[in-house]
């Protein structure tokens, strides 16, 4: 493990859904400023683990710590404000809102979302809105959706929707990013620039935990890899080690 302190610590996390232990005594440390991959067969519990981290599900047992703060008892919005952002496996952009509105919603802690501020702190809110507008323009351009600024997000192609979701996530300014299958459904050319992007933002100081089925991607960008099978962590290490592990190969790759 790196010398630097873990940004996220999961201790003995367990969650049952409909009688099935979907996450089973999972303990994980995520190194700050690194890219960690989470791999495992379909139904292994990867997305469920993300749901636990982002507060959409409550663990039955165990703890989750994010930088000295215990988060497994916090509501989702507080977890987001603490600095954890998430890209959903099923994208979840706001389809009826425009591309611009989607991105303007990225700030997890916008004071203008409190009605009292709108009337008693109007100047400040207007200033923040202006700043958000500028940053939204930047992110829209960044993912190449300039022409679509005012179109409803639902009218974009799947690839564009994914880019929008990524732009929305990045505009949120979180220091820790959970990416659920970021490359799924993205064409190979785009995958390359996406991976570049991930590496760039990590160089910029952010931490990434990503779920991935494409092993080439994992080998290329991950610093560390956890392997999850039937809710349990069965292997951890450098990507080459984990992917070389015979157990992992048997359980996952079928070889």
């Amino acid at each position, binding site marked *: 493990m790196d010398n630097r302190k873990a940004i996220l610590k999961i201790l003995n996390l367990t969650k049952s859904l409909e009688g099935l232990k979907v996450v089973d005594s999972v303990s994980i440390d995520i190194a700050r400023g690194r890219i960690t991959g989470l791999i495992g067969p379909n139904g292994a519990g990867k997305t469920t683990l993300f749901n636990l981290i*982002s*507060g*959409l599900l409550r663990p039955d047992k165990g703890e989750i710590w994010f930088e000295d703060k215990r988060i497994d008892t916090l*509501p*989702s*919005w507080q*977890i*987001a*404000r603490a600095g954890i*952002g*998430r890209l*959903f496996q099923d994208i*979840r*952009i*706001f*389809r*009826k*809102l425009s591309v611009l*509105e989607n991105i*303007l*919603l*990225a*700030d*997890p*802690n*916008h004071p*203008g*979302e*409190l*009605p009292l501020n*709108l009337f008693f702190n109007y100047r400040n*809110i207007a200033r923040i*809105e202006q700043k958000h507008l500028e940053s939204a323009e930047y992110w829209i351009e960044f993912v190449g959706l300039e022409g679509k600024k005012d179109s409803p997000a639902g009218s974009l192609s799947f690839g564009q929707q994914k880019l929008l979701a990524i732009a*929305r996530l990045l505009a*949120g300014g979180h220091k820790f990013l959970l990416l659920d299958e970021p490359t799924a459904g993205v064409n190979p050319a785009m995958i390359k620039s996406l991976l570049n992007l991930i590496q760039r933002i990590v160089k910029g100081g952010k931490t990434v935990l990503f779920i991935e089925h494409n092993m080439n991607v994992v080998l290329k960008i991950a610093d560390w890899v956890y392997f999850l099978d039937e809710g349990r962590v069965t292997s951890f290490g450098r990507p080459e080690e984990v992917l070389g592990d015979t157990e992992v190969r048997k359980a996952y790759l079928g070889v």
Partner: protein
Amino acid sequence: MNYLFHILIMLCIYGILALSLNLLIGYSGLLSLAHAAFYGIGAYASTLLMVKLGLNFFPALILGIFISGSLALLIAYPSLRLKGDYFVLASLGFQLIVFSILYNWIGLTRGPYGIPGIPRPTIFGFEFNSITSYFILSAGIFSLVFVFIRHLCQSPFGRALKSLREDEIAARVMGKNVPLLKVWTFIIAGGLAAISGALYAGYVTYIDPTSFTLDESIFIITIVLVGGSGNLKGPLAGVLFMIILPEALRFIGLPDTIAPNVRQMIYGLLLILLMRYRPQGLAGEYRLE
């Protein structure tokens, strides 16, 4: 001419009711059957403050807004815990409890006897006692409310509401404090409905509980759904349609004995047909969840 002004005043009163209920239905996705309760709370609160404490209309109106807005917390809380049908039932229960209190707490509200002799609003010695001046007052208040709501809906607050209406889970993970947003929507919707209540009381100068029944709640919902929710033009289209329709029916010479029932039957049929063929209403954006 008086007749015309009467219609215009009603448009203002119901316009505020529809725009405020739209915040709940169209922006938070909550089908509330309790809006007439807040309308009634506003009417009774401002009336009692005027009649019993001798307050002027305008301070009574402001206090009425606060009282109704605070009581809205009582229904906001269940809304956070109950989904869909269960919330509809809770709002229904709230409506009937409020009606029951207005009707039976005779010591406070005089129950079925109602409260007569409500003073007209006055400002700097000017009394709004002609129908023309009352229309001007109503139109002024309506415009203020309209501007307020438009500002709200275009603000980051309104945007956040739209986001949770579309995908509450994504909104939560993006840091939106969903419970607080919903609570605020209730407070604002309840407070605004109280304005209509005070305007109504000051206009007819007599109130009794029968103006604030479940049927009235259903009528306000019908307005919002016929016009459509989720934007501002939908509810306003609904108000125009629903307030003018009965007058139109009167013009085609429907006898007064059957007119109320025929009108109601048309409303019922409209709801059925709209839900089937045009769930977003005449000019709305949002389809009910």
